[in-house]
């Protein structure tokens, strides 16, 4: 063997090691998801087993059928969807205008406002659940969609404003000035020029609001108490908690909610992260 070959072999060895290391981590990351999948297609009599094979003998979709037929799973999904869409719309529309003011105007209290926004992020979410719960109770909105929407609607607002402001800042001002000369008002320029151009950032903010509310558990736990009003997080927790026989249905439900969320997340993660780092590095 000459030097070149030794070098080549060394390099090959190095790459092999890297791949091996990464694959180990990948397995650790993905395995629990695969296990849910495999549990969800286990036949009912073999739910409790120490079998580790991914595709069990006698695989069946019975758990999915039972989940949809015997539980309120669809209703839970619908509840979650309704609450989540409503909160996201409220959150994004409030954030889009506020971010515009922060991005384009100079006004007294601008810096203070931005700092206030950031400092709200320091209030532990868990801390506000109690007063929100008491407020919702006092307003008589326990166990309703409205109570949930109210509790969720501003939780992602500071972050959304931050992301949108960052995006607006990259749109040249001359576009709005051209629109002003062309005959729009300042608000018209926002509506006709800035908003259409910001669809990427708006959809990221929307997604962020959406996933936060969609995956929320702790507020739902205290506001909702009848299983008809449950969001899917509560429903799944209940399925998992009750009896070990529900394990298959829990797994099936998990798969049904996870797959769409996963797809949306993987699709948008790039922008989400750039938004996360952008905001923090700039500040």
């Amino acid at each position: 063997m000459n030097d070149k070959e030794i070098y080549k072999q060394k390099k090959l060895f190095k790459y092999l090691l890297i791949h091996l290391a990464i694959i180990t981590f990948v397995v650790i990351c993905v395995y629990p998801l695969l296990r849910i999948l495999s549990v969800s297609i286990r036949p009912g009599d073999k739910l409790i087993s120490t079998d580790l094979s991914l595709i069990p003998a006698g695989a069946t979709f019975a758990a999915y059928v039972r989940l949809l037929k015997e539980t309120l799973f669809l209703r839970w999904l619908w509840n979650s969807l309704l609450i989540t869409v409503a909160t996201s719309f409220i959150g994004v529309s409030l954030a889009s205008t506020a971010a515009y003011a922060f991005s384009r105007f100079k006004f007294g209290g601008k810096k203070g406002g931005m700092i206030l926004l950031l400092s709200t992020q320091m209030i532990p979410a868990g801390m506000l659940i109690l007063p929100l719960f008491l407020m919702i109770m006092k307003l008589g909105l326990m166990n309703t969609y409205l109570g949930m929407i109210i509790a969720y609607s501003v939780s992602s607002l500071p972050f959304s404003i931050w992301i949108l402001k960052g995006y607006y800042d990259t749109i040249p001002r001359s576009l709005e000035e051209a629109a002003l000369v062309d005959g729009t008002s300042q608000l018209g320029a926002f509506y006709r020029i800035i908003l259409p151009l910001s669809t990427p950032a708006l959809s990221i903010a929307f997604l962020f609001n959406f996933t936060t509310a969609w995956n929320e558990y702790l507020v739902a736990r205290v506001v909702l108490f009848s299983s008809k009003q449950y969001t899917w997080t509560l429903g799944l927790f209940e399925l998992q908690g009750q009896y070990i026989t529900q394990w298959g249905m829990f797994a099936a439900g998990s798969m049904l909610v996870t797959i769409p969320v996963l797809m949306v997340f993987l699709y948008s993660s790039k922008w989400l992260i750039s938004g996360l780092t952008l905001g923090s590095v700039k500040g």
Partner: protein
Amino acid sequence: MAEVRFSKVTKKFNENVILNGVDAEIRDHEFVVIVGPSGCGKTTLLRMLAGLEEITSGEIYIDNVLVNNMHPSKRQIAMVFQDYALYPHMTVAENMSFALRLRKAPKAEIDQRVTEAANILQLTKLLGRMPKQLSGGQRQRVAIGRAIVRKPKVFLFDEPLSNLDAKLREEMRVEIAKLYQRLNATIIYVTHDQVEAMTLAGRIVVMNRGIIQQVGSPIEVYRKPANLFVAGFIGSPTMNFISGRLSMADGKAVFQSEDLSIGVPGFVLHESEAVDGREVVLGVRPDDVLVGGKASEHCSEKLQAVLEVSELLGHRENLYLKIGQTRLVAMVEAFFNQAPGSAVPFCLNYTNMHFFDKITEKRIG
């Protein structure tokens, strides 16, 4: 078409004075170029005229109507921005018709005006494209088209060519000149490039530090710069400046510096200005530093200089001369076959000598 009048226009940003009492009048059908170094306030002036910047004090009139507090769209102006500001989410046609659509103009009229403008600017084939799909020069033309479609009283151009590369810039310069002849509109054009100013303008407004330095036709500004700043700013390569003093001998004025002594003909300086011992700056354009054969043709008394470097530009050549401690640039026709270090006889073209008072920096002859 319309005239524009600035009256004592001032702009302050906090404590910084950007514009300090600008008075100017722009006549109907006139192509006025406002030129100055960056930060001189020229763009601010234009943006105040467009209504994009608040006016601290003073008045701006378009067609004798005070527009200080008028919304930009009501001023009947159109503006071409430095970065074109084409709406990225609209096609070329939509970009051009945006203002008309906002005004709810009838569709037939919108179509007719867009087609007309597209014909003028050869954009017909591009009407369906998005700005992203256009080259720099095409975007520039769309931006101009957007202005034409509106049939404004005044066209405002804010450094429209500065984002183009050198070759395109020359082409577009000619295009804009042609367009002006065709539209015969009032145009106010802001640039920092004095070549654009010289080639395009009917009248040039030279600005520096928020003050108008000189207003005049290109040839006036070039031949009779009102002060040291204008003299140095207009013309390339830059005018040579030599500090010195005037002295009177036998009723004739003589300019004396550390290294030079030059007789000044009577027609250059007014008699009242020719004061014995006055501190002045002599300005000579590089073209007027005559060297070699030309020197012997034109002048009787010749001076001696040493050639430091020569730069060949093709048809012309820049010579960097040194006389004692004084340095001069001369521009001659190619090829000046002399090695650096050699002695060069030269003289100054008396007809185009400029004298400025050293303290006031104003032109005295």
